[in-house]
């Protein structure tokens, strides 16, 4: 009986397994293999050499770019967490009618289902030299000259990250908050806790799993990104993803693969640490 049930489960899980094997496991294995290969200007050839890694770890650019990647991830995390938590808290504890809650939640989710590229492009008329932000600030007399750092800078990169990814915080945090027993909150109030005390000592601890899941999403999305940094910085800033995509553009696949392996290890270590704080399957 147990055997046949297992075989049904394998049959049902087989398609998922097949897709992940063919398009995740084998390709990643291939990247690992190719990271030891050599490259000429036009082609790559099988070899076993550590040159790609040796070059990667000896170049000061690598460390600078990894640092920039962590910097983007950290700053984006701080902003998406504070904004996402506040929005989720409002939806879960202050909106009273359920249909209103659903409607507002949908309103938050819809942009996630539209194109990221378009959402990046749409910042141009805001942030450009003659954009809305500069025109408004000048007309208010706050500044005399247009600010140059609004577009094509770290500022615009992080702004776009926050714009694109705050949703990934709102959804899991909201999901966890909705399952907090409201009587716990009332008990805190009845015992004389202030609003802030209740928030900090009751709601935040109970919301931790949601915060962790949101954090995993945001940190991995930012660390693996290359297109937001390239587009929003006007190719003036770099992160690890861009290092890889530049190598690819130059057909230096082995070098791209070595960087990719190091990036993957870094991301998996970060996730491994974060997963110690949460059991994902229980939280769905």
């Amino acid at each position, binding site marked *: 009986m147990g055997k046949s049930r297992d075989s049904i489960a394998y049959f049902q899980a087989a398609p998922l397994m097949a*897709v992940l094997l063919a398009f995740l496991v*084998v390709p990643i294995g291939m990247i690992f293999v190719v990271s030891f290969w050599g490259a000429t200007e036009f082609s790559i050839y099988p070899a076993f050499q550590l040159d790609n890694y040796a070059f990667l770890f000896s170049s000061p650019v690598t460390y600078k770019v990894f640092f920039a990647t962590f910097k983007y991830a950290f700053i984006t995390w701080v902003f998406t967490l504070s904004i996402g938590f506040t929005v989720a808290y409002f939806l879960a504890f202050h909106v009273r009618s359920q249909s209103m809650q659903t409607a507002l939640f949908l309103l938050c989710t*819809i942009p996630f289902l539209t194109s990221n590229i378009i959402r990046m*492009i*749409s910042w141009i*008329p805001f942030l450009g030299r003659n954009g809305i932000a500069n025109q408004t600030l000048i007309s208010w007399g706050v500044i005399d000259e247009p600010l140059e750092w609004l577009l094509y800078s770290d500022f615009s990169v992080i702004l776009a990250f926050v714009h694109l990814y705050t949703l990934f915080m709102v959804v899991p945090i909201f999901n966890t908050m909705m399952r907090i027993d409201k009587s716990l909150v009332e008990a805190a109030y009845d015992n004389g806790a202030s609003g802030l005390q209740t928030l900090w000592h009751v709601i935040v601890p109970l919301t931790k799993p949601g915060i962790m899941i949101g954090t995993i999403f945001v940190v991995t999305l930012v660390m693996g990104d290359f297109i937001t940094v390239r587009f929003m910085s006007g190719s003036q800033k770099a992160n690890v993803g861009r290092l890889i995509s530049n190598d690819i553009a130059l057909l230096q696949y082995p070098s791209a693969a070595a960087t990719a392996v190091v990036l993957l290890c870094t991301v998996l270590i970060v996730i491994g640490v974060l997963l110690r704080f949460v059991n994902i399957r229980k939280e769905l």
Partner: protein
Amino acid sequence: MEQRPRSFYFLAAFFCVFLLFLYGPTLTIGVLSFQGKGGGLTFPMRGVSLNWFRELFEQQAVGDIWGSFRRSLALGFMVMVSTVVVSVSAGLAFRKKFAGSTVLFYLTITSLVIPSILVSLGVGLIFNQLGFKVHWATSGFGSQLTWTLPFGLLIIFAVFNRFDKSYEEAARDQGATPWQIIRHVILPIIAPSLIGVALFGFTLSYDEFARTLLTAGSYNTLPLEIFGMTTNVTTPVIYALGTLTTLFSLAIIGVFLLVVWILGKRRARIGSDAGKAL
């Protein structure tokens, strides 16, 4: 009804600002896509015209927009159907622990959190070394599934965690076969959530960029085409395209929501079709 605390008004204001932040830029390019003929990428508007939309339909000096749209549409439907079928099937398997289920689960999570460019690079390398040509319908399709399947599976998990098993047990007690239970009990009950999975599958594919970048081959999907345009198009025609494709996404979301709503109404009126099999 009790008095709203003061914090409510502060949080409500914060929420409104957040919505403005989410939608403001998109609305801005919506307005700017009606820019007059001599107008540029920023305000002020130099008149109002449909000039840029017309250019989108007339000349094809900048790539193959409509071809890429058709490809994205076809790919979106392929990914949508596969995502629903594969993730429901895997979701059913995951309801019981089986040898290797933990590994498969973490593999799915890895598929979700892995930097997209690695999937793109890896699949591209495999296809090249095997001597296959990368194409949006083969390598592109598979790469997109590594992004949509984890989302589909997570939604299915959430659904099954709330699933009342007594319906299933009742069916089994009455002598239903496992397949009958799936077909006539489980699927009708989870149908509305499947529409959610389908919506995710389609829209995530339709907008996917990084995982398709090195796996689409010589025929671009729409996001790739749009990104190509950002480097060489400096007129509001790109806003017009952005506005159209966003409207298209919104229409798709609207259709899906409508279907969920109609299903809910129908179910409330005539009940589910559980039991029809008898």
